[in-house]
């Protein structure tokens, strides 16, 4: 559905790349997660894919069509949820969606139904200028579904939302996938990526360092960790120790034999820990 080969982009048109040699393929019906810390180049990549930034170097094909040769009708197949909410502040929620639905050449969703899905039915007739940040975020998310897109680009769809709303959004994304939508999801929320994505790409400083399913990444890079709380010299201490690393294993033995262990359990490495391990970077 989406094929990207050797994509480069420099905002300054020189050798300093915001996106550097990025390649990936997304299959139909797949949720592809694009994970990386702030400034990694996630939004830049998404903007190139949807034609908001012109392609400088590399190849991008969407639905089998080279994006350099597409016409505007391609946008009938695409839905985009933006990182920063961009709606008409003078129009109400429902007017915003209604206006947008008129821009497409394909059958569109009922605006009220979409607003209801994201919990904005009570605010449907309020001006978007009076919406809170989270409400605006949901409005943009709802708007991106208006044309029933085959390919859906979501840039940080859950940032700044409460856990309850986040899980509603997660449910909608999952449901759309089951209907066959291909989804490109940008986030730095590892938990979302873990539960939603079929495959994820780790991106830092514009470069991809790994692409695989969360499960495979865990099998490959994940290691069992022991989390242990113990008392040494009358002080409560806490440690995370790998169960495969020789040094860590020895330390664990020492703690057990010489200190008073309060709690101890093993846990699987999270995607976040794997990310740090592979890229050497925190996700914030």
């Amino acid at each position, binding site marked *: 559905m989406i094929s990207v080969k050797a994509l480069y982009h420099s905002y300054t048109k020189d050798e300093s790349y915001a996106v550097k040699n990025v390649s990936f393929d997304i299959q139909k019906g797949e949720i592809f997660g694009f994970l990386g810390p702030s400034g990694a180049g996630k939004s830049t990549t998404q903007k190139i894919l949807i*034609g908001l930034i012109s392609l400088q170097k590399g190849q991008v094909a969407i639905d089998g069509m080279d994006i350099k040769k597409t016409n505007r009708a391609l946008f009938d197949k695409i839905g985009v949820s933006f990182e920063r909410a961009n*709606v*008409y*502040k003078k129009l109400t929620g429902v007017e915003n969606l209604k*206006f*947008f639905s008129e*821009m*497409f050449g394909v059958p569109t969703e009922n605006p009220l139904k979409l607003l209801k899905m994201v919990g904005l039915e009570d605010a449907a007739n309020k001006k978007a200028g009076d919406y809170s940040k989270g409400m605006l975020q949901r409005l943009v998310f709802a708007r991106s579904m208006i044309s029933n897109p085959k390919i859906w680009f979501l840039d940080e769809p859950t940032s700044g939302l409460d856990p309850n709303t986040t899980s509603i959004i997660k449910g909608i994304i999952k449901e759309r996938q089951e209907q066959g939508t291909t989804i490109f999801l940008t986030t730095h929320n590892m938990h979302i990526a873990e539960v939603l994505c079929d495959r994820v790409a780790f991106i830092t400083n514009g470069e991809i360092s790994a692409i695989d399913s969360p499960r495979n990444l865990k099998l490959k890079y994940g290691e069992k960790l022991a989390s242990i709380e113990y008392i040494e010299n009358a002080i409560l201490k806490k440690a995370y120790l790998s169960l495969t690393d020789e040094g860590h294993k020895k330390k664990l033995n020492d703690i057990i034999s010489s200190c008073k262990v309060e709690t101890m359990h093993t846990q699987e490495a999270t995607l976040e820990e794997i990310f740090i391990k592979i890229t050497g970077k925190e996700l914030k």
Partner: protein
Amino acid sequence: MKRLFGLLKKDFLVAYRGYFFLIMLVVALILVVVTNWLIPEKANLDVKVLYAVEGERTERMNSLLGFLQGAEGSQRLDSKSAVIELMQGDKNTIGVIIREAAEKPVIEIVLQGYENQQSRNALALSLSAAIDAQNIDYSNIENVTLQAVEQPEIPLNKSFVPLMILNEPVMLGFIFLATLIFMEKEENTIRAYLVSPVRIWEYLLSKIIIMAALALISTILITVFTVGIHVNWIMLLAIVTAGSVFGAASAMFIAVFFDNLSKAMIWIISISLIFTIPMAAYFIPSFSPWFITILPTYDLMFAIREAIYPAGNPQIFYQSFITLTIINAALYIMSIALYQRSLLRD
């Protein structure tokens, strides 16, 4: 078509809730009130003549003195110095000193200094005519009028109406359109279009149509409530449409170069001031340096006047309409290309 209607509906709502229509109505109302009740129908621009006779009063001066006496507001003083003294206190006067030398009346004219050549000539002519009056046989004079139709005199207050129509619908359109575009740039909604099948030309056209509609409503209101319904409506509405599209398209063209309203403000203000310079030439048609006449608003202003007060010069309408249409098309096409590029600039 569906997209264009959608865009129009949205632009209308945004303009309406941004109080564009209200502002337009209030400004139109103010202009109507100013025209009908605040500007006098007639301005007292008549110059008063102060005159004095130096030396002997002779027979030959009689007709001239009779003429001066009969002039409205004229005043006879004793000496040249008295004339000059009074003239310094009242800028709306001129002085005429009459004396006799070598058996002929000699006339000296004292001016304030700001009178133009035309009024000097006119004054000299009327004085010499007065001197000759006794020798002219009026029965031999035939009156020739250049305009076959009698021109009704336009009251002063109503003669401002074409200027107001140039200002309110056309210039307001210029400023409103810039506001509308920057509103979308700041909300970043422009990006949301770019990922929908909307074409830039539809996006821009919708805004132009809204501005033209605003201009037409305001023109009709101002015209009906000042000069009434007896104007050349087809000509008036056509030229106002062309003019408001010109204002809107210029604003659109300028807005593409800036990210926000505050950066563009200085340009918007400067250009709208430049566009209004031709108003200086409205009451003095002979004042027409090239840097004023090349401004499209110059012809536009006289074309609007022709539509309201026909002076038998319809070619000014055609000339202005065709020029504006060509400029508008060029601005529109350039804007489409520029918007396409600038939005992908990032």
